[in-house]
C-alpha cells in the first residue's frame, strides 16, 4: 500500500501504518457548531480506547454554501447540526485544532457539498489536509446542483488540495461513492462509483485516496463487495496510496441500543474480515438525534472492541462470487471508455443512463433503475434502465415498489437488528418482493 510517497504526518500514512500492524482505524461522524464543543469532541475522540482519527463534520448551511445563515446562527446562539468551518474564522478553527490534531491524530473534514471551494479553502487555511466527498457522490443524492457544475468545482478543489503536497504533507481525499443514497443501492454500482471518483481524484493530482463502501443489508453480500472493491482498487489505481473505508449502516438505524450495537459490531467484523483499513461508526442514538460526544466515544470503543474480538477469532470469510466484481467492472469500463477525461465521462455516463442511481430524484439522474431486498436479504436490481450490466444481472423487470414496500425495505435493517418478532417479518416479507413485469 505504501508506494514511496511522502506519507509522514499524513492521513493516508497514519491509516497505512495502523493497517500494517493489523489495527482497524475507527472514526466518528462528529460535528458541533461551537468551537469549544468541537474541540472537546476531538479531545474525547483522541482519548478513546481505540486506534482512531478525528472528524469535524460540517453543518447543513455550510454544506449548501449559505455561510451568512451559519454566521447569523452562531451570532444568535443557535446550535447547528455541525461545525461551520467557513463562518468561523481561521484562527478559531486553528484554536479548535491546536495541540489536538497532528501526525498522531489526523483530523478529517466531512461535509456533503457539491461545490466545496469555500470548504476546501477553509480547511487548508486551518492547516488540515484530509477531507472527503466527490463530484458525483456529493452532488446527485444530496443537492440540486447540476452534475456538470459539481464536476468542475471538484476538479478545482482536487487541484487545490493536491497542491498541498508541495508543503511536504501528502493530502488525502476519500470518495463518498460507497454511500450513494445511504441504502438500497446495489453494491456493484456503489463500488464502481467509488473507483470512478478515485480515478477522478487521481486525474487532478491526488496520490493518497480512500475508497468507501457502506454496510448494506446482507453481511455475505457486503463481504463480497468489499473484496471486489479492493481488487478493483489494485487494478485501477496502481501507484496510488489507497485504502478501503467502511461506513457503518447509513439507512434507517435500529432504535434499540442492542440492535444499534449489533449492527455496528457487524460493520466492524466486516471491516476486519475483508481487510478494510478504516471504519466510520454510527451511535446508538442515531435513530433519534444528533449524537453527543459521549455517544460517539462509546461507539468508537464498541467498534474497536468488536474489531479486536474478530481479529482474535476470525470467522471464515466465505464470500461466494455472485457477480458484484463483474458488474462493477462493466460499469467502470463503460465510463472509462466514454471519454479520456474522467469528469466528463462521469457526466456523460449519467446523461446516457450508463450510471443510474435507484430512487435518486436529482434531475441529472436518469431515474430508470430500481432495486429491492430479496428473500435472503441481499440487494438486487429490479430494473437496470440503460446500465450496461445486462450480461451480469440477466433479465430484470421494471418493478416499482409500493410505498409500503419501500418503507419495509428502508426499515429492513432496523427491524432485523431490533429483533422484531418473526410474525411481523412474515407480514412484511411479501412486500419486499417488487411486482416484476415481464421484460
Amino acid at each position, binding site marked *: 500500500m505504501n508506494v514511496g510517497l511522502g506519507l509522514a504526518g499524513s492521513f493516508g500514512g497514519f491509516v497505512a501504518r495502523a493497517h500494517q500492524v493489523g489495527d482497524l482505524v475507527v472514526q466518528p461522524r462528529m460535528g458541533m457548531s461551537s468551537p469549544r464543543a468541537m474541540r472537546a469532541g476531538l479531545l474525547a475522540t483522541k482519548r478513546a480506547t481505540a486506534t482512531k482519527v478525528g472528524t469535524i463534520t460540517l453543518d447543513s448551511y455550510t454544506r449548501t454554501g449559505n455561510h451568512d445563515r451559519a454566521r447569523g446562527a452562531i451570532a*444568535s446562539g443557535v446550535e447547528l*447540526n455541525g461545525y461551520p468551518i467557513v463562518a468561523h474564522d481561521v484562527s478559531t478553527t486553528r484554536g479548535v485544532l491546536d495541540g489536538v490534531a497532528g501526525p498522531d491524530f489526523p483530523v478529517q473534514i466531512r461535509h456533503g457539498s457539491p461545490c466545496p471551494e469555500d470548504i476546501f479553502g477553509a480547511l487548508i487555511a486551518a492547516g488540515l489536509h484530509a477531507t472527503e466527498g466527490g463530484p458525483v457522490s456529493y452532488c446527485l443524492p*444530496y443537492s440540486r446542483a447540476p452534475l456538470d457544475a459539481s464536476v468542475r468545482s471538484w476538479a478545482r478543489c482536487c487541484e487545490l488540495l493536491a497542491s498541498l503536497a508541495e508543503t511536504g504533507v501528502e493530502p488525502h481525499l476519500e470518495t463518498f461513492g460507497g454511500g450513494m443514497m445511504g441504502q438500497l443501492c446495489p453494491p456493484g454500482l456503489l463500488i464502481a462509483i467509488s473507483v470512478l471518483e478515485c480515478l477522478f481524484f487521481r486525474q487532478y493530482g491526488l496520490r493518497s485516496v480512500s475508497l468507501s463502501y457502506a454496510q448494506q443489508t446482507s453481511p455475505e453480500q457486503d463481504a463480497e463487495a468489499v473484496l471486489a472493491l479492493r481488487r478493483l482498487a489494485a487494478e485501477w489505481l496502481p501507484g496510488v496510496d489507497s485504502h478501503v473505508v467502511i461506513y457503518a449502516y447509513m439507512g434507517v438505524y435500529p432504535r434499540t441500543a442492542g440492535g444499534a450495537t449489533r449492527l455496528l459490531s457487524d460493520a466492524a467484523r466486516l471491516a476486519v474480515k475483508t481487510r478494510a483499513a478504516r471504519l466510520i461508526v454510527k451511535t446508538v442514538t442515531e435513530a433519534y438525534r444528533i449524537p453527543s460526544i459521549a455517544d460517539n466515544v462509546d461507539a468508537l470503543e464498541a467498534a474497536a472492541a468488536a474489531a479486536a474480538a474478530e481479529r482474535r477469532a476470525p470467522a471464515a470469510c466465505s464470500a461466494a462470487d455472485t457477480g458484484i466484481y463483474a458488474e462493477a467492472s462493466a460499469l467502470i469500463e463503460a465510463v472509462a471508455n466514454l471519454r479520456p477525461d474522467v469528469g466528463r465521462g462521469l457526466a456523460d455516463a449519467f446523461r446516457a443512463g450508463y450510471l443510474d442511481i435507484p430512487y435518486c*430524484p436529482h434531475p441529472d439522474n436518469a431515474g430508470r433503475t430500481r432495486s429491492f431486498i430479496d428473500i435472503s436479504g441481499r440487494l438486487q436490481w429490479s430494473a437496470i434502465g440503460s446500465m450496461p450490466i445486462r450480461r451480469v444481472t440477466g433479465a430484470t423487470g421494471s418493478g416499482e415498489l409500493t410505498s409500503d414496500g*419501500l418503507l419495509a425495505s*428502508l426499515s429492513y435493517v432496523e427491524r432485523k437488528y431490533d429483533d422484531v418478532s418473526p410474525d411481523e417479518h412474515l407480514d412484511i416479507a411479501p412486500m419486499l418482493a417488487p411486482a416484476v413485469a415481464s421484460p
Partner: protein
Amino acid sequence: MKPAADDARLAVTGPDPGPDASSSRVATERRYLMCPPTHFDVVYSINPWMDPSEPVNRWLALQQWQRIRDAFVELGHTVELIPPIPGLPDMVFSANGATVVDGRALVARFRYDERAAESAAYLDWFAAQRYEACQAAWTNEGEGDFLMAGGWLLAGTGFRTDRRAHAESEEFFGCPVVGLTLVNDEYYHLDTALAVLDEQTIMYYPAAFAPDSQEILYALFPDAIIATDKDARAFGLNAVSDGRHVVLPAGAAGLTAQLRERGFEPVEVEVSELLRAGGGVKCCTLELRHPAEAELAPPAAAELTAPAEAGGLSVVVTTVASDSHSWNLVYLRLALTELGHQVLNLGPCVPDELLISECLRVRPDLIVVSSVNGHGFIDGMQLISRIRGCQELAATPVVIGGKLGIAGPAGRSRRNQLMAAGFDAVFEDGTGMAAFRAFTERLTMKATA
C-alpha cells in the same frame, strides 16, 4: 402636568444614515403612556441593578426622563401621563403597568409586593380613559415582558412574568404568543434584552435567553440586530422605536452603528440614574395601541384549484434549503401517488425561492415540507413566512414534518410556533403516516365538495 421642554436638546446622533438606507424606514405615529419620576428612589432591591445603600439623584433622574419624553414629542408622537403615586418609587417604569393592544389593556399583576399597588393606579387610569381593561390573573409585568412584533406577542418569562400569563395573554388579545425564557437576572424583563424595531426587525442579546428561545428568535427573526455584551450592559436594548427612529440609552455603540447601517435613526439619551433601578428608555414607556382607523377586510380565502383528477390533489413535495435528504421525499411521492394525488417531488436542498416559483407555476392544492436534518424548524419558520408573504400562496395548505430539531422531538411548543407561523399541520417524527393521510383525506374531501 406639563413639564418644560425648553432645556432638553436631543442627542440625535448621526444625521447621515448612509447612502442607501436613508429613506427605507418609515416612522408611524405612536401614543405612549409615561409616569414622571417624582417619587423615584431605590429603597428596595428586586433586580441586580438596584442598590438601596446608594442615594439616588432624583433631580438627575427627572432630567433624564424629561429627555426621553421630549424625544418622543419632537418625533411627533403623543405622550400621555399617568400621575405618580407617593410610596411607589418604580412607577416611573410605566411599561410594566400593562400591555395594550387594539384599545384593550391587560393590566399587570406584579411579581413583588413592593410594586403590587401600582396595578390599581393603572386600572383606574385605563377605566377613566374608557379602555377595556382588566387585571391579569397570573403574574404579568406588562410590556416589561410582552412585546408586539409582526403579529406576534413576544412574551418573556423566567424572572417576573408567569408562564401561565402567556396563555392568558394569547386568549385576551387573540394573537399568537411566542414564549421566551430569560436566564440572566441582569436582564430580568424581556424589554431589557430585546427591542422591537418594526414589524419584521428586532434587536436582542442572545445570551440573555435559554437555548431553545435563542433558536425560536433566530427562526422568527433571522435578520435581527445582535447586541454585544457591552451593548446589553449599557441597557441599549431597553429602547423604543417608531419604525425609523430608535430612542435608546446612550453608550451602546455597537447597536447605534448597526441601527444606522440598517437605515434606522438612533436617538441616544442618557439614562444613568434611571438605570440604578434597572430601567432605561423602554421601561419608562408604555405603548397605547388603538384599533386601526379602518379595519381592513380579511383577505378572501383563495379557492382551492381544481383537483388534479377526480378526488386527487396536486401536491408539491419538498424539503428545506439546507436539507440534503431524499428518502423521505421519495417515500412521500410514492405514498401520495398511491392515494390518487399528482405529485411533484422537488428533491433535496430546495432553495425557498425555487419552491415558491415552482408553486406559483403549478399552483398546488397542498405543499408538503419534509425535513430530517435538524434544521427543519428554523428553516421552516423562514420558509413559511416567505410562502405566506406571497399573495397567491397565502391560503395554500402547507404542512411540515420529520425530524425538525437537532435534539429530537420538542413537543407542543415547537409545533405551536410552526402552526402560528402559518403551517396548517405539523407531523413531527413519531406522529406516523396515519395522521398525515387523515389530513390529506380531509383536504381532498374539501376540494371535491
